[in-house]
């Protein structure tokens, strides 16, 4: 599963989107995010969200507002359909 990662660094401010990673569930995504995006610095706050759970606005394109299937954060909604039998994350 693809997760989007948001980090708030030690010195405050809002969480910032830093990228994505693959993990089988949220718990592992969180652990991986610590290792990948913070290299384990203390005091950071991490949010992980499955990419498929993010609803995004469309970039000012009128047709897109009427296509609910087109509201995922990345380009091709079909990309999220990973069959459970697929052997890789």
């Amino acid at each position, binding site marked *: 599963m693809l997760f989007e990662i948001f980090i708030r660094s030690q010195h405050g401010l809002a969480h910032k989107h830093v*990228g994505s990673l693959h993990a*089988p569930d949220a718990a592992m995504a969180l652990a991986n995010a610590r290792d990948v995006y913070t290299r384990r610095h203390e005091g950071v706050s991490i949010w992980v969200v499955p990419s498929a759970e993010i609803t995004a606005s469309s*970039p000012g*394109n009128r047709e897109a507002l009427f296509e609910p299937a087109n509201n995922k954060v*990345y*380009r091709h909604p079909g990309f999220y359909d990973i069959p*459970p039998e697929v052997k*890789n*994350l």
Partner: protein
Amino acid sequence: MEIAAAPELSFQARIDEGVKIEPKDAMPEAYRQTLIRQISQHAHSEIVGQLPEGNWIGRAPTLQRKAILLAKVQDEAGHGLYLYSAAETLGASRNDLVADLLSGKAKYSSIFNYPTLTWADIGAIGWLVDGAAIMNQIPLCRCSYGPYARAMVRICKEESFHQRQGFDILRVLCQGTAAQKAMAQDALNRWWWPSLMMFGPPDEQSSHSAQSMQWKIKLVSNDGLRQKFVDQTVPQADFLGLRVPDPDLKWNEERGHYDFGPIPWEEFHQVIRGHGPCNRDRLLTRQKAHHEGAWVREALNAYARKHEKAG
């Protein structure tokens, strides 16, 4: 996905104005495909690049050097990850990209098809290969595609110590015993020309360049970067007391650049075609890791599915 002519003009205008293109923006299919290919090639290079250096983690000559090398190789895994993420924003899937690498269909930087034969090679890789990579990556921080540019910024920040550690390894060798100095010279002899080839074929032979330049996916020409690299690196070699293995290398006062000898392009093409010293080994190693890890990935998925309802 078809794009009408009018949106395509505004797409180019955005690029010309330096406005970043983001994942959901309308874009020509060729732009998307070129980016996927370029970004994934870069990602594959980072992943395969762990292997020549990883070869010496177990034999690093001091605990400090071991720690630094471990951290460097880990950074490279991280960079591969950031880049796969950037490619995925364009609709590619990491599984597919990896499958293309393992099948031999996708390319990665030719430099990683050379063997690391001595500890000095680790120094040479940091100094020359990372040096060349940084030269390519800094302009890419300004490329037109947002996620790629941001990944590059993150990578460049982490890259800063890589080149320095390589140079430092060689500096100590060059100040050491005669055998160590010879080791360093030998490494430079073997890594110099492949490093120059990292910048790709000469501009006039580079098929994708013009369109990529217009779309700001490529920001400096191959020859331009190559020249800059030579100009920057030769004084560093002089500092180390090492001899660049190019009898035609000469400062050209008129041009304000170093003249250098002909690049053995035939070797480059053979390596790209799969005939470099390590192509087979690199691919076999990655295939083996992937294949032997399949049961692990399946287990992780199975556990997650079993427990997702339990929450």
